[in-house]
């Protein structure tokens, strides 16, 4: 495959006004280009014949995840600097177009990730960062875990993170709302521990998807998560609490945005307040809004936090911080429009981000965590958090 196939991609890229609009699948006379866009980089795969597109896309995402895992950030500079490692990793991940090893646990055993310390050691001792050991995991029944793991502090942390996706309409009523949750785990346990995790209210989980380590049969029969965990950080499961259950929306937004036909000035006013938070404080509140193209500038004064309006991208962002229920944060001011243009026919939508610690908005609770197969007593910890996912308020 010659490099020139990429030209088709650049063409498509130029045609698309925004990076996001580049189609993921581009047919060319002899090949098909499948791309993913992450971290402001396009990753393109060239394929020659029929193949499930998701197969390729999912793989590309996995590649990006691996890079991120290896280098901390997945940026253009990082890839250029580590081109050798990148090649080595890709070499292990793919054989003739078929994915080989995609678990980062195994890859790290094969090719050790570069760290400053190791670079120093390597230059002194002349050793390599390619593991000479056979990745035991790949051949065993639990391909995701390597053998011979040892820790002095044995600990297992689980983060239950829930995200609320919601669309709120002009009048403040909820159009759709659903909860997407994940349980991310950080397990640092010696040996081959076998863990079980049970919930107080497993019925809540409507649709779940597991890390391959979870034994599906036990979930089906007992609603218990039973698994031999991979070493380190991993996503144990992600779940979905359906829209049928009523979702408590923890914040509300009062807004008053108006443009007048005659003058080039408009009014802008937003207030954010808590609602159904179960006594917890709402933190990390961030309001962003994409203004219409005709907006020239905004003069606003926030009662709290800082705000930025980028006149090029027309993006307004207001970093609110914590919400104090006694003194609701608000942002007031005026909008100046380009002279001569008619008023925009749609008010901008407001995107909201926030965090609530120690609360799982769906009410999910972990009952207990047990460990079998090893003798020591691990330290266990569980954290809950609720975040805004795609939380939009139409105005």
């Amino acid at each position, binding site marked *: *495959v010659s*490099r020139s196939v*990429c030209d088709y991609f*650049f063409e498509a*890229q*130029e045609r698309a006004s925004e990076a996001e*609009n580049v*189609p*993921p*699948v581009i*047919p060319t006379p002899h090949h*098909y*280009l499948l791309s*993913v866009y992450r971290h*402001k*980089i396009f*990753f*393109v*795969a*060239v*394929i*020659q*014949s*029929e*193949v*499930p597109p*998701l197969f390729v896309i*999912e793989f*590309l995402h996995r590649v990006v995840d691996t890079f991120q895992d290896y280098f901390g950030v997945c940026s253009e500079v990082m*890839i*250029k600097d580590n*081109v050798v490692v990148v*090649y*080595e990793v*890709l*070499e292990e*991940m793919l*054989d*003739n*177009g*078929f*994915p080989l090893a995609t678990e980062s646990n195994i890859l790290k055993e094969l090719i050790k990730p570069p760290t400053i310390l190791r670079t120093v050691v390597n230059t002194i001792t*002349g050793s*390599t960062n390619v593991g000479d050991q*056979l990745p035991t995991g790949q051949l*065993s*029944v639990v391909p995701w875990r390597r053998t011979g793991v040892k820790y002095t502090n044995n600990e297992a942390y689980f983060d239950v993170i829930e995200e609320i996706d919601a669309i709120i*309409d002009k009048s403040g009523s909820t*159009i759709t709302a659903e909860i*997407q949750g994940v349980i991310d785990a950080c397990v640092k346990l010696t040996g081959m521990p076998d863990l079980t995790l049970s919930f107080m209210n497993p019925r809540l989980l409507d649709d*779940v*998807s*597991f890390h391959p380590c979870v034994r599906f049969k036990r979930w*089906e029969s007992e609603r218990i998560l039973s698994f031999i965990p991979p070493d380190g950080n991993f996503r144990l499961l992600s779940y979905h609490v359906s829209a049928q259950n009523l979702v408590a929306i923890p914040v509300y937004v009062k807004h008053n945005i108006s443009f007048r036909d005659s003058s080039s000035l408009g009014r802008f006013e937003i207030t954010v307040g808590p609602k159904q938070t179960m006594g917890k404080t709402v933190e990390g509140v961030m309001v962003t809004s994409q203004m*219409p193209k005709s907006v020239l500038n905004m003069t606003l004064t926030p009662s709290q936090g800082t705000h930025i309006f980028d006149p090029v991208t027309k993006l307004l962002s207001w970093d609110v911080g914590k919400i104090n229920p006694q003194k609701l944060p608000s942002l007031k001011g005026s909008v100046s429009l380009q002279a001569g243009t008619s008023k925009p*026919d*749609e008010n901008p939508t407001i995107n909201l981000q926030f965090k609530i610690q120690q609360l799982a908005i769906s009410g999910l609770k972990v009952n207990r965590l047990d460990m079998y197969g090893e003798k020591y007593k691990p330290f266990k910890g569980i954290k809950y958090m609720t975040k805004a996912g*795609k939380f*939009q308020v*139409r105005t």
Partner: protein
Amino acid sequence: MSGNGLSYSEQGAEAAADLGQEAAPTTGPSAPVAFGLFSSDTKKNEDLKQMLESSKDSAKLDAMKRIVGMIAKGKNASELFPAVVKNVASKNIEIKKLVYVYLMRYAEEQQDLALLSISTFQRALKDPNQLIRASALRVLSSIRVPIIVPIMMLAIKEACSDLSPYVRKNAAHAIQKLYSLDPEQKEMLIEVIEKLLKDRSTLVAGSVVMAFEEVCPDRIDLIHKNYRKLCHLLVDVEEWGQVVIIHMLTRYARTQFVSPWKDDEVVEEYSENNFYESDEEQKEKDQKVKNTYTMDPDHRLLLRNTKPLLQSRNAAVVMAVAQLYWHLAPKSEASIVAKSLVRLLRSNREVQYIVLQNIATMSIQRKGMFEPYLKSFYVRSTDPTMIKTLKLEILTNLANEANISTLLREFQTYVRSQDKQFAAATIQAIGRCATNITEVTDTCLNGLVCLLSNRDEIVVAESVVVIKKLLQTQPAHHCEIIKHMAKLLDNITVPVARASILWLIGEYCERVPKIAPDVLRKTAKSFTNEDDLVKLQILNLGAKLYLTNSKQTKLLTQYVLNLGKYDQSYDIRDRTRFIRQLIVPNEKSGALSKYAKKIFLAQKPAPLLESPFKDRDHFQLGTLSHTLNSRASGYLELSDWPEVAPDPSVRDVDVAESAKEWTGNLDKTKKEKPTEKFYSESEEEEDESASTSASESESGSESEKQDEEEGSSVDTSGSSTSSEESSDSESDSKESTAKKTSRAANESVSENIKKKAKDTSKKRNTSNSSDTESTPSEKSSSDSKSESDSKSDSESEKSVSATSTKKEEKQVHDKKASNKQDVFLLDLDDFYPVTTPVAAPTAAVLSTSLTADLEGLCLSNSSVIDVTTQVAVPTKTHELLHRMSGKGLAAHYHFSRQPSIFGDGMVSVQVTVTNTTDQKIENIHIEEKKLPPGMRMHDFNPIECLEPAGSITVPMGIDFCDSTQMASFQLCTKDGRFNVTIQPPVGELLLPVTMSEKDFKKEQGMLIGMNETSATIAVALQNSTRHVIIERVVKAANLGIVPSGQDNIHRFAAKTAHSGSLVLVTVELKESSTAQLVINTEKTVIGSVLLRELKPVLSQG
């Protein structure tokens, strides 16, 4: 699957994409820079070369890193090839890895030099570390050099019986690579695939199915026996493998099971369209099939085993299961996938895009499936446009009377979107809803009319177009709207919209008699400035008005027609001429003008507003073709359901048969390499290992016990079989096989199965014997009886030794296994080559190998062999054409090891053709030889006629040019042509040479260095006798024995058939049962291949 070198292009693209973001003209500056640096580049290469040649690993590593960097930047680093290749044997793993990367990139360009590295890989293939074996195989198969195809083939064959599943997995990958390099190897590869399909390891399953899809997707018969195993293993296979297997099984199930939809179709509310059959047909069938349909248990098994995979974190797996359910499950069950698909919408934009496309197709056919998730498809302002459009599409598909009001409210928000493209799409969606749901048509129309006063031109234009379409469906009461639109004409500039308005006015000019002429007047004024599309409509309008209201508009129309006559566009000129002829009465006008009014003002059918996804349903969901809505290369059509299910029993793996097969197989393998095979099988998979080895020895031990304790029953079966056998010299060994078979079967299962086993074993034996009879030519060619005797002796000796090894093993496992027996036997069927469902072909396959092993006693009577010891050289018979694929014509060939009578350089091949049909086969001859350059072939004389059950052996000669490339040709009969291939083992490319020890040493002295390949092998003590070594070496290759002065050194000499280069083989026995094997020859490739073939021959126990 995806193109080779995916990783590279990916890299390249990525790097390039980065550049593309920084500065648009990427290639512009970089190209001249590279050119300018050219001189310094070569200098740099010099010092890279020096670094590569330095003794320090760190310097080499540094150099390799820089070279890889060069590759990444797209610079040509090929001139460093020789320097890099030298490092292929480096001890440092990182250097090695980078050299591999380099090799794969440039080997195809520098084929000759790449060959230098081959021997390193061949050595690595024997490495005790499975990781190294695997990576050697990977790289070897990635070097795309046609010359090494035979080496690759050998390596793959070897690797697919490797003990490590990881190596076997890589073998499966190598199959695809070899196939893309040389499609000629297909037949052989299919054999390997067949073997690997039987593998029980979850590691292998995914890769081998991938290879299957690539090489022989149509050989669905290979799947039958493995179907259930695959279903069971599916959950444990790694995720990428799952995707491939599920897609394969979908296709499989579509050919093997009857449709589960027949029942539902009547009940199902939304299935107004039948997928693949016409309505009437379906109805008829419904009458018949209704309530009689029961799902095949295997079909159910597949659905049940794939369901948990909906929970996978891998979107591709979920999609694969979804499409499987969509295509295979009864409609009532298919809806469970909806939830999982909706879940996928949370992930990345690319995944969303593909999933939404698939949902769009699904939602057209079965609305009910996604209705509960309607709100999940609501559009967010942050979605990219393509996602928005797809969501809108789905929402439109899902619209029905119940939810239309909420939907329309939602649509109203979208129309005001800043994204105008999306707003326009929304208007179209409203239009579609309006036509589909009659209750809301008026509401929609009113809404759209309101939009006409929108300030945005695109929105207005789009609404005009949609209104036009809507009005067409019910024009009766909408004069007002038409009037309104006529007023708008002054403001709208978008051509499509203007054209639409003009068309509307023209079409309904009788309803707006006052406005129409006025509009024509206005447009006539601006005619010259209009778009072509609008001009055409002006002409149309004029014509229609002329016909209905000629008084007012005659002049105007003529004016317009005149303008049109001199227009730049030929389309418009044509149209003008046509209209003029048609409507303006003159003396020449024919009969047509009378009908002008009818022609122009005919009732036009209303357009159907359809989903653009309507026509996608003929593609399998989740495929690339579906995404693109065009056939991608390599797309495999999903077949229709069969009318009647094919025999489900083909998937049955009969317990008795398998037991029999298994023991038979065991015996056979034992005879070949007892110990090695034994372990390799017992270590198939970790959790399986105990059971396998146990059961393996179990049956042996049990049979032993039975022999002692209740020998009577066994004896009957044993004797009954033996009585039916031809009392040959070989009957001994065969009998023992048969006995063991029936014993194993006997003890493994209860009475009734015992009978079956007997039957089958009988069957097999008879076919064996018939086969023996059918190849008398082979036997007659064997020179002396005494030799064949000695041969059979040695055979039986071996089997005895095999049994003894078995005995030792069995004592260990005996007790452990006895209580689990049944379970094991069930497992076994997947484990062992259970060839084909019917008994007959089984026998045939077995018999070929048996003939090879036992019967072919043809001696090479080359005069050159200095027969100091009695050596029997059996001829290995290879299959040329199987009787199943040859429509009853079977052909085998063997190398007679005689100098060819047809010419120098040729290897003589004896082809035995057998007629297994009950009719005569006439005119058997050879056609269409496809030989690699340089190869020659001398055909056999055409066989005029072959009687039923007759068989004939004919000689032919092939000059293989000292390569192991295949000779392919067509074997033709009067009625058929069959593609066949002959591939010579390297040992058959040689002709033995006599020479003295002194000459040998002299010649050997001249063939050192590059021309020498050697290996150290382990040789068991009992094999180190002169007799055994000579027998084995000569059996494997056509070598002449050189008399030797020392007891521990054995020498063999031969020359290649084509070029006459000497090939000298030395086996030197060392202490502690190792031996040094040295081959000296100018033909290094032959040398290394020969070395590899001889190694196992000598080292086996």
